[in-house]
């Protein structure tokens, strides 16, 4: 019989190696699936690796794709720390992108060194305010935020759809549902020549460091963690639980909003309905894979992005469906969650 016994402390080597082992195990499991399609698993993973990291172009593409995922991953990580289950990263992403389009496509013109921070601030505000609605409903009426944040995604997406077909439609777009491009002053400049990597990546990494510092060194971080771990005890100690939830919502929604700004003003240049292939939802997987640690979110986002980018070229070459990337991501997240259990418990065989 096997029993689980809680560990008093987990050794450092275990805490570090467990998630890596888990990802390896996930790749092994998915190898079976690849073999099932008739392809060679080794070849498939080789192509995946090459497609994601095998050339300068591949690496820059992976980093470009990782940029919004770092930000939505941070959004999920900080909210989940406070046990505010924000599933609405996708909606907040579009809220941020919408704010950037509304203000940045010609409505206001500032010099670039002001315009870029201005758009980022506006996008963060839009994302934050959007998440404020579920947060207030949760505080006042105990409405489950999983439901409200999830459903708000569809409301925002349909609203963006309406705007792109109507008021915001670019007259120069030859009938395509897309908004006017962000003016040059507001565009996030490329930081590597001959690539799509832009300032958004720097912003995302700085944001990760700031979130880490916030959680670790400040009273706010202390209060967010306390509320997440045990709201009853936090309230007893005099921490304003509702206030903390509001603060967390503003931060989390704001980060997802910045992701939207980064995509619209950095990667694509204009707003469309397919601006995000699910960056908001991917952020949840990123955060879970990183065990909600803000710095690990960066690595986790790059890893997942590499899988997505690499799977594209793999599937082109081997005719393995691209869905395999979703399966690898999902299996990795599950495996990492299970490995988290091994760091907290010890198996006893008898």
């Amino acid at each position, binding site marked *: 019989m096997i029993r689980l*016994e809680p560990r*008093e*402390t987990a050794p450092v080597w275990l805490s570090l190696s467990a998630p890596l082992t888990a990802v390896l195990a996930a790749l092994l499991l998915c190898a079976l699936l690849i073999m099932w399609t008739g392809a060679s698993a080794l070849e498939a993973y080789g192509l995946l690796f090459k497609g994601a990291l095998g050339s300068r172009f591949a690496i820059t593409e992976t980093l470009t794709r990782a940029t919004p995922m770092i930000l939505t991953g941070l959004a999920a990580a900080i909210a989940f720390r406070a046990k505010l289950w924000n599933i609405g990263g996708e909606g907040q992403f579009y809220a941020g992108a919408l704010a950037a389009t509304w203000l940045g496509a010609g409505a206001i013109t500032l010099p670039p060194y002001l315009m870029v921070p201005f758009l980022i601030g506006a996008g963060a505000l839009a994302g934050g305010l959007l998440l404020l609605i579920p947060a207030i409903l949760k505080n006042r009426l105990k409405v489950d935020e999983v439901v409200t944040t999830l459903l708000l995604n569809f409301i925002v997406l349909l609203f963006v759809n309406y705007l792109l077909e109507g008021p915001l439609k670019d007259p120069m777009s030859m009938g395509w549902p897309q908004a006017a491009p962000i003016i040059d002053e507001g565009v996030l400049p490329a930081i590597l020549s001959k690539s799509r990597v832009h300032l958004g990546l720097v912003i995302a990494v700085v944001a990760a460091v700031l979130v880490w510092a916030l959680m670790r*060194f*400040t*009273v*706010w971080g*202390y*209060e967010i*963690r*306390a509320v997440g*771990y*045990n709201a*009853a*005890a*936090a*309230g*007893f*100690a*005099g*921490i304003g639980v509702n206030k903390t939830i509001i603060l967390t919502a503003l931060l989390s929604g704001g980060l997802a909003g910045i992701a939207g700004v980064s995509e619209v003003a950095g990667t694509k240049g204009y707003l469309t309905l397919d601006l995000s292939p699910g960056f908001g939802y991917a952020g949840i997987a990123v955060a879970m894979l990183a065990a909600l640690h803000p710095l690990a979110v960066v690595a986790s986002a790059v890893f997942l992005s590499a899988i997505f980018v690499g799977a594209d070229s793999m599937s082109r070459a081997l005719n393995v469906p691209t869905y395999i990337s979703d399966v690898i991501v999902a299996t990795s997240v599950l495996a990492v969650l299970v490995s988290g259990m091994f760091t907290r418990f010890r198996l006893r065989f*008898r």
Partner: protein
Amino acid sequence: MTAILKLVNISKRFGSLTANDAISLSLEEGEILALLGENGAGKTTLMNILFGHYTADEGHVEVFGKPLPPGQPDAALAAGIGMVHQHFSLADNLSVLENIMLGTESLWAWRQDTAFATGRIKQLSRDFGLTVDPMAQVSTLTVGERQRVEILKALYRDARILILDEPTAVLTPQESESLFETLRSLVDRGMSIIFISHKLNEIVSVSDRVMVIRRGKVVAEQPIRGADRASLAEAMVGHTVHAPKGDVLAPGDVVFQLQNVSAGAADGGQPLVDVDLAIHQHEIVGIAGVSGNGQQTLADLISGLCRPGSGSMTLFGNKLAHYNPDVMVKSGVGRIPEDRNRVGVIGEMTVQENLISEKRRRLPFSKFGFMNAKVIEDHAARQIDAFDVRCQGPHAETRLLSGGNVQKLILARVLDAEPSLLLADQPSRGLDVGAVAYVHEKILDARARGCGVLLISEDLEELMALSDRIVVIYHGRLSQPVNPEDITARDIGLMMSGQSEAA
């Protein structure tokens, strides 16, 4: 007389901890064997092995001369062993009848034979004086009645050996006495009982034989006749224990006062109805009562978790403008909550983080919103030392601490602020004798310093020993205060069950 139950050389280890170390025990027909020991001594582990919840690493169990297969609660039930746990295992939304029948019938039976079961339950109730209505829903029963249902459940399954784990922890003195009568009538009819407790009084009054366990080992075993309480206590703890006693002190100014206060409970519990209460400096006011009679609301009021609906509440002579935990802490109220693990500390956070939870926003612990790690760590190291909190250090996760050490941590946090009013809600519940003495000593120190103390407890002995005045709470109302020297525990028990007004 023959032994109907034998445990032979039972050993059980959890990691590096030896919970049971070669314990042998035999139970004879028609006797009550008391198992005495502190929390964590290994009593419950031993009984869980007997009942098949755990498997022993070494040793075996024999019932009626036959070996009992290890690790199978089914086999223990079939062999006639019944267990009444400290925390009842009843379904609140089912009737007494349904609870008792649960698990006794085949899953494939077409219909329940309720008529037969009702008859049998009524018969058992009559035979053993266990009055309870089989049709009543369990959620409507008192704690004493629920315990009777648990005993009936065991009897219904033809238990010949009954194990009771800390059965009196939740009962009033009257209910305990009626339980003891039931137990005696059970053994008169040939039942055998193992009675687990750490209360010496009841062991002496109910059992035939006592076995003392300390740190997983049997340290004494003797007939109760001729047993000396002091020596039993010493055997249990391993050294002599001096119960701390407060000096006689004249009460000073009023520190806290409620006048005609009514207050609704935050979570739908028993509200307070038209309550008057005053606590003075140098005074411990004890609140006695069966749990659920409004103690929680009273504690929430002082903790700042709820506000008075009507009437006036004054703290150090001032009426409060805001009611929240922060205001209370800043005004000089120390609060030891009832549920120390769920409300008192945050288990996933470190000891040092929990020690500053109430003053995280104050200098020198934080400045401009940034925590000062060095100050927090040094502060924790000093507090751990001063209050003898046994842990790996300031960075240890709090959930790894034992109950007694969590309570010391809370005491350290609360008393460091030198409060002028102290709420101590069930401060010694579930702690071992040594830790209880420590908690009492600290409360008495606070009183000597001039602090007014409100002590809420379900342990009458504790209330009688510490309180300067005792007030009984019943259905949200408070009795007139009584002097513990002028009243017996029995009389307080009557007031607790609403059967008499102030003595």
